[in-house]
């Protein structure tokens, strides 16, 4: 399965060029240790980057023909007059303006208008149906394994759905991420899982204290100061009754 960490994948090229600043570089390298799919992508990007770098030294035949060179002087005059020297569009228009061509163009315009109305209607309907499941269509929520938060420790499936109360919503503007804790029982400080919404998956963060079902990819974050389970990235959030 391909990795959803688009945010880290976008940094691979700056990483290859040695332009990624330290905290981001370390984060990417930690992820690479963990993710076979991203390592494979990095290898491909490095090969593509090395080939593309050679474009800078390749040259085409010299640009500009003598005709155009001499025409530059004419263009200067055309610019000043607001004329259309160099572009024979008027002649083309006159040749195109036959009765048969006008009829054909009118039919095309009417057809385009019809298509515009139909496509706008489908866009509006699509927006209306997208209320609770944010990335519906991209994922099948039925494939996610429904688990209670304490059960995440023994889970081996990547796609999970889990319910809980939202706490400590934190937005990182620079990273374009939103992280929050999902707690099983807010009263007794019980089990929790850290959930992260990341760019380019855009969805509104859930309200602090609300009860929700979170769909996403389960990971274990083994950093020294963390060591907790995560749903990262979050792919959908569905509000539940408290």
């Amino acid at each position: 399965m391909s990795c959803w960490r688009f945010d880290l994948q976008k940094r691979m090229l700056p990483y290859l060029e040695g332009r990624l600043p330290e905290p981001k570089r370390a984060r990417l390298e930690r992820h690479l240790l963990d993710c076979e799919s991203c390592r494979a992508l990095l290898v491909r990007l490095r090969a593509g980057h090395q080939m593309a770098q050679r474009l800078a030294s390749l040259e085409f035949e010299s640009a500009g023909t003598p005709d155009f060179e001499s025409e530059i002087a004419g263009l200067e005059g055309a610019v000043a007059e607001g004329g259309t020297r160099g572009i024979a569009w008027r002649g083309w228009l006159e040749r195109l303006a036959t009765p048969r061509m006008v009829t054909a163009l009118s039919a095309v315009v009417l057809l385009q208008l019809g298509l515009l109305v139909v496509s706008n209607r489908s866009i509006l309907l699509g927006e209306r149906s997208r209320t609770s499941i944010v990335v519906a269509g991209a994922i099948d929520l039925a494939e996610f394994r429904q688990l209670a938060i304490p059960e995440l420790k023994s889970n081996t499936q990547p796609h999970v759905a889990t319910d809980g109360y939202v706490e400590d919503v934190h937005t990182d503007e620079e990273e374009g991420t939103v992280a929050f804790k999902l707690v099983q029982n807010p009263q007794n400080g019980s089990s929790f899982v850290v959930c992260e919404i990341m760019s380019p998956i855009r969805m509104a963060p859930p309200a602090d204290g609300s009860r929700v079902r979170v769909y996403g990819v389960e990971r274990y974050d083994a950093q020294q100061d963390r060591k907790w389970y995560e749903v990262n990235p979050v792919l959908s959030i569905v509000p539940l009754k408290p």
Partner: protein
Amino acid sequence: MRAAQDNDGHALRHLYEAYRAQVYSLALYSVGDPAQAQDVLQAVFLKVFRGLRGFRFHSTLATWIYRIAHNECREHHRRSKPPFVPLEAVLGSMDEVDPKPNSHDQHARRERDRIIQQAVMQLPFQMREVVVLKYVEGLSYDDMSRVLECAPGTVASRLNRALAALEERLRPFKEFL
């Protein structure tokens, strides 16, 4: 620049000389044909010269010219979509390419250059454009996002897709390149 805005002939020519090669290479990679690239070059500079009076220095001159060139290339691409031709059809299969290139051999070097250029030209338009802006024109992510009028994150995604596609197309020729 101010002189060019006042239609000073020398200044216009200077502007043309300064940006001609960049616009031409962007156009050639975009349209794939020298004669059509020449048409694009002409159309771009006509628009540049006409639009100079309205240029308000909200972006750099280079970014503004690239944006005009990008729009012209995109328009040209919309009007005439070339049929897809596989790379092997243009260059022959790997079996037909000399597997032992001599780095001093001018012909072999040109052949390798041609393979890379053809592979770039066969990328889909959006990918090709972002590769050319970065690797041929040397624009930064921020400048590319201004030229293409999209977020830097979108530029990064397109570049990733483009480089992965380029690697895939050139994989059979890897040893030769």
